[in-house]
C-alpha cells in the first residue's frame, strides 16, 4: 500500500501520520482485548512492560534476558591520547612492501581529516571539543589545537584557504585558516538548519567536484522511522546557501568520496544494531542520480527487510549497495586512492576505515579494507588491507576512523582510540620513521 517511490515532505508526513494513526489504533484496541479481571483488588505497582527507550539509545532493540546480548555496549574509547612511545605500531600489519609509521600523536579522539595546500592536516573530534591542526614545516611536524569549545566537531573540509567544520548541529568556516593556526580563530557559522539529535548527529563533511559542501543527517537512533529532515545526504554552496537534500534512506554515513573517473559519489552507511550477530552488513553505496533512496529503515544491505519497519515494503523499492562491508563493522571514512606511490593496481581503488563492531560478540572490522572496483564502478572485491587494530583476544588496540591521500602518495589513517594519525607508505623505506 505504501509506496516509497517518490519522496519528499508530503510522503514523509503521510508515513509519519500513518504510523501515528496505527499506534493510536493499537492503543485504543489494547484495553478491549485485555479486559481487567473482575473483582481483583488493585495490584501493587508492578513494573509495566518496559517503556520505549528514547530513540537515541543504543540499547534499543537489545533482547531482554539474554546474557550474551547484555554484555554488548558501545566500546568506550580512552579519553586521553596514547603516549607516542606506547602506540601499538608493532601490532599493525600491512601487506608486503607497505610500511606504517606514526605521523602525529597527542590528539584525543582524532576523527575526520582534511588537508590544505601547505600540507597542514586538520583533524576533527567527536567526543572532545577540538579541531587540531598538524603543521609540517621542513619535515618537522607539530600538533596545534586550532579551535576549542566546539560541540562534537567531527567533520572538517578545506578549500581555497578556508576550513569548514561540521559540529553536531551547525556548519561553520574559518577563512585564511593557515594564517591563524595559533591565534584561536573563531569559526563563523554558515548553516544551522539542522536537527539537534545526539544520536548519529555528528557529521562527515567533504567538498565535491561541483564545489559544494556535502554532509549527512543520520537517523536519530538505532532504528527509527525518521522524518523528512533525517536519514539523508545534503549539499549546499560553500557560503551555506542553496542547501538541498540529494539522497535518502541513509542510516548514518561517516565517510564519502567521489570516483575520480566518473565523479559519482560513493558513501559508507552503517547498518542497524541488534538485528542479529551477523546481520545486517554495513553498506558501500553509489549515487548514480539525485534523489535515490538507499532503504533505511525499511531495508538494510539491499536484501534484508527490517523486521519492524519493512512490512509493506520490498527491498526492490530501494537502491542496493555496491558492496557489503561486514556485520556491524562501522565502515566510516573512505577515499579513492589517487596517488602514485602505491603500485598502479591501487590507483582509483577505495580504502575504507572500518572502525570495528561493538554489537557483535566476536568483534568484526577494526581495519582498513581495500575495495577493488570494476571498470564500470561496480565492486570486484572487499578485503582487509591493514589489520591489527582488533587483536585476536577480541580487544581493540586502535580504531581507524578516516583515511586521506597525501600529496606524496602516502595515505594517512586517523585513529580515535589512540588519538593518533598513522602514515602508510609503499616502497623501500626507513622502518618506523616516526619513532
Amino acid at each position, binding site marked *: 500500500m505504501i509506496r516509497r517511490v517518490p519522496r519528499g515532505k508530503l510522503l514523509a508526513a503521510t508515513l509519519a501520520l500513518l504510523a501515528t494513526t496505527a499506534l493510536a489504533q493499537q492503543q485504543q484496541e489494547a484495553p478491549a482485548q485485555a479486559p481487567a479481571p473482575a473483582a481483583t483488588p488493585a495490584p501493587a505497582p508492578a513494573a509495566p512492560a518496559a517503556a520505549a527507550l*528514547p530513540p537515541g539509545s543504543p540499547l534499543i532493540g537489545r533482547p531482554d534476558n539474554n546474557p550474551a546480548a547484555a554484555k554488548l555496549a558501545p566500546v568506550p574509547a580512552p579519553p586521553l591520547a596514547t603516549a607516542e612511545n606506547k602506540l601499538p605500531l608493532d601490532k599493525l600489519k600491512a601487506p608486503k612492501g607497505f610500511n606504517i609509521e606514526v605521523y602525529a600523536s597527542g590528539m584525543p579522539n582524532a576523527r575526520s581529516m582534511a588537508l590544505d595546500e601547505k600540507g597542514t592536516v586538520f583533524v576533527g573530534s567527536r567526543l572532545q571539543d577540538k579541531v587540531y591542526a598538524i603543521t609540517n614545516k621542513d619535515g618537522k611536524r607539530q600538533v596545534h589545537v586550532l579551535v576549542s569549545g566546539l560541540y562534537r566537531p567531527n567533520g572538517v573540509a578545506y578549500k581555497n584557504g578556508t576550513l569548514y567544520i561540521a559540529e553536531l548541529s551547525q556548519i561553520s568556516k574559518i577563512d585564511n585558516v593557515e594564517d591563524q593556526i595559533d591565534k584561536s580563530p573563531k569559526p563563523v557559522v554558515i548553516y544551522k538548519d539542522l536537527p539537534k539529535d545526539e544520536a548519529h548527529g555528528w557529521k562527515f563533511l567533504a567538498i565535491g567536484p561541483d564545489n559544494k559542501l556535502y554532509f549527512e543527517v543520520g537517523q536519530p537512533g538505532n532504528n527509527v522511522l525518521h522524518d523528512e529532515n533525517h536519514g539523508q545526504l545534503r549539499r549546499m554552496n560553500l557560503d551555506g546557501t542553496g542547501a538541498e537534500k540529494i539522497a535518502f534512506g541513509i542510516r548514518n554515513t561517516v565517510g564519502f568520496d567521489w570516483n575520480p573517473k566518473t565523479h559519482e559519489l560513493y558513501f559508507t552507511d552503517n547498518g542497524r544494531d541488534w538485528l542479529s550477530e551477523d546481520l545486517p552488513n554495513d553498506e558501500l553505496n553509489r549515487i548514480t542520480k539525485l534523489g535515490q533512496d538507499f532503504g533505511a529503515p525499511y531495508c538494510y544491505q539491499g536484501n534484508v527487510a527490517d523486521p519492524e519497519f519493512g512490512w509493506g515494503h520490498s527491498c526492490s523499492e530501494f537502491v542496493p549497495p555496491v558492496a557489503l562491508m561486514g556485520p556491524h563493522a562501522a565502515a566510516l571514512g573512505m577515499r579513492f586512492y589517487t596517488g602514485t606511490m602505491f603500485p598502479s593496481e591501487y590507483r582509483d581503488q577505495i580504502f575504507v576505515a572500518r572502525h570495528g563492531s561493538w554489537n557483535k560478540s566476536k568483534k568484526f572490522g577494526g581495519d582498513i579494507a581495500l575495495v577493488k572496483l570494476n571498470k564500470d564502478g561496480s565492486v570486484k572485491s572487499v578485503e582487509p588491507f591493514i589489520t591489527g587494530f582488533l587483536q585476536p583476544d577480541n580487544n581493540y588496540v586502535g580504531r581507524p576512523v578516516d583515511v586521506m591521500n597525501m600529496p606524496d602518495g602516502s595515505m594517512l589513517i586517523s585513529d580515535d582510540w589512540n588519538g593518533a594519525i598513522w602514515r602508510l607508505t609503499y616502497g623501500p623505506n626507513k622502518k618506523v620513521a616516526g619513532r
Partner: protein
Amino acid sequence: MRSFVALLALGCVAALPASAQQLVKERLPTCLACHGENGQSQLEGVPSLGAQQAFYVTVQLLMFREKMRIADPMNDMAKDLTDTDLQGFAEIISQLPAPKPAAGPVDDARMARAQVLVQQNRCNFCHTPNFAGQQNVPRIAAQREDYLVKALRGYKDNSRHGYDASMADVIAPITDEQILDLAYYIARVK
C-alpha cells in the same frame, strides 16, 4: 583516616612518575576536604567519590580541565593537571571505600515507585544492577540525593553535556518529579 589516605596515596600510585605521585599526594587532602575523607561527601551539592570508576573519573577530570564541563571550583582545580595526573587521581579515587546509602526512615511506597522507573528507563543496563557502574559509566549507588538531582537536572536541561550522548538521550522522557524519585531511590537502595 588520615593515615589510611596517606597509605593509599603511597601504595596505589606507585606506577606513576615521581612528580605525579608527589602531586597526587599533596593535592588529595584538598580534594577530600570537600568530597569527604572516606569516600563519602558530607557537603551539599558535592558528590561522594568513593569507589568511583577510574575511567569515569579520568573523563570528568579531563572535561573539567578542558572546560567541557563547567563546575566551580573543579575547572580551576584541574586546569594544570597533566594526563598522568588525571590518571593518578582517578586511580586513587577509585580505591577509596564506596559510600554508604543514606540513613534514616525510608518511604517504601516511594521506593517502589522509583524501582518501576529504574526498570522502565533501564538505568541498570549501563550502571549495572547494583549501580556500581562500569568503565565510562559512573557508580551512582549511594550517591548523595541532592547531587543526583543536580546531575539529572543538568542532563535534562542540557547545562551538563555528557562526554558521550547516553544521558542526554536517556533523560529526555523523564520528568522532574521522576528525577526526584529516582534520586531518592538510588541514594538509599541497598
